[in-house]
């Protein structure tokens, strides 16, 4: 991929842990690449698989889904329900031959500003190496 390529990364994060973790990264002035676009949702339980598909349709080169660690969910069990969905959804993506290295799941607590910085940095660099997700973009451009 050319140097010019800057990946587009969509991050679905829960309002109570990861979003605050990202805020903390800011408060501590922890620098990371500007490629990620955060969409704030109440809970990982709200993050349906369709949103992930839609993000790739919208041209995302990678998607990050992040919420509260197990047992820390603001809504007691939203993240557990989400985790179960992801287990099955990832299998579906694997069956389809989806590029799994473009979808990332993390638990990042309100205290883990550092982890947010690391995760976003690593995902951005990794996706830079992978280049644009042409396989998916082709679907969206192809018109038979």
């Amino acid at each position, binding site marked *: 991929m050319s140097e010019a390529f800057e990946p587009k990364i969509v991050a679905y994060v829960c309002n109570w842990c990861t979003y605050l973790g990202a805020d903390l990264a800011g408060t501590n002035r922890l620098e990371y690449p500007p490629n990620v676009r955060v969409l704030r949702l109440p809970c990982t339980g709200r993050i349906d698989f369709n949103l992930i598909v839609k993000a790739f*349709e919208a041209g995302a080169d990678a998607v990050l889904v992040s919420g509260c660690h197990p047992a820390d969910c603001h809504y007691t069990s939203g993240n557990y329900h989400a985790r179960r969905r992801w287990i099955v959804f990832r299998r579906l993506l694997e*069956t*389809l*031959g989806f590029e*799994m290295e473009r979808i990332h799941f993390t*638990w990042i607590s309100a205290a883990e500003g550092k982890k947010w910085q690391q995760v976003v940095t690593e995902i951005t660099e990794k996706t830079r190496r992978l280049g644009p997700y042409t396989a998916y973009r082709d679907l969206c451009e192809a018109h*038979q």
Partner: protein
Amino acid sequence: MITRLRETCRRLLDQNKVQVVIGYGQRRPGAAAHPVFITRPEDVGQLTWGGNCFANLTVYLKRKEVKALGKAALVVKGCDERALVVLEKEAQVERGDLYVIGMACDGVHAPKCSACVVRTPRFADELIGEAGSAPGAASPAAPDLLDVLMAKPAAERWAFWKSEFSRCVKCYACRQVCPLCYCERCIVDKNRPVTIDTSASLKGNFAWHITRAFHLAARCVGCGECTRACPAGIPVGLLNRSLADTAKGNFGYAAGMDPAAEPVFGAWSSSDKEDFIR
């Protein structure tokens, strides 16, 4: 068996235990059996049974045109009956509002039969035929399509589905024949917002088949009707099977087998695996 079947249905209709029998009929010898809806005792002669009864008739329980006929007697094979178990779990059928006629099945010359796990209906109100005819083991000759696919590198799997889905015309036969696709209005038919492009473009087709498969995850009973119904010959059922494997592997759940088992979704366990979560 056919005679016994017809007698049973005549009795049910005569005594007005049911108002309609949903069963199989046949127009011409050699042709595949087709669904028939018998409302008059004198018509039970149209009912048939045999290796050509592919269709999963439980799908008709969701049709309002059929519901309107009154209480139904439904002819099911062991595999079809699993759909009933799920429908009951999901509050779609009141078992009491239904008379289930189970047919002990020796397979219906369909690919799915090689992987059959329940030939003999287990919860029927009346079982017709010799119970316990054992499921035939998967024929070793035919390599399993899913295994073959999963053995390939991701890029090839993607290419495979790309070419398969390129033939999809969005006729929704896969949805309409599915007993478990009973939404009042399918998400693909909603346009505020548009979750799935209605176009039969690759984009729209991928979004549709991903959604369809996932909505049936840990629900699909593997009756194979979606694959049978696809006019483009797309093996859509493969996706469902793949997810059924995951449900079994991760949660020990097989849809439609154990009426008491807790569904995979809507529940959770603190020990669910998360090796993929950082």
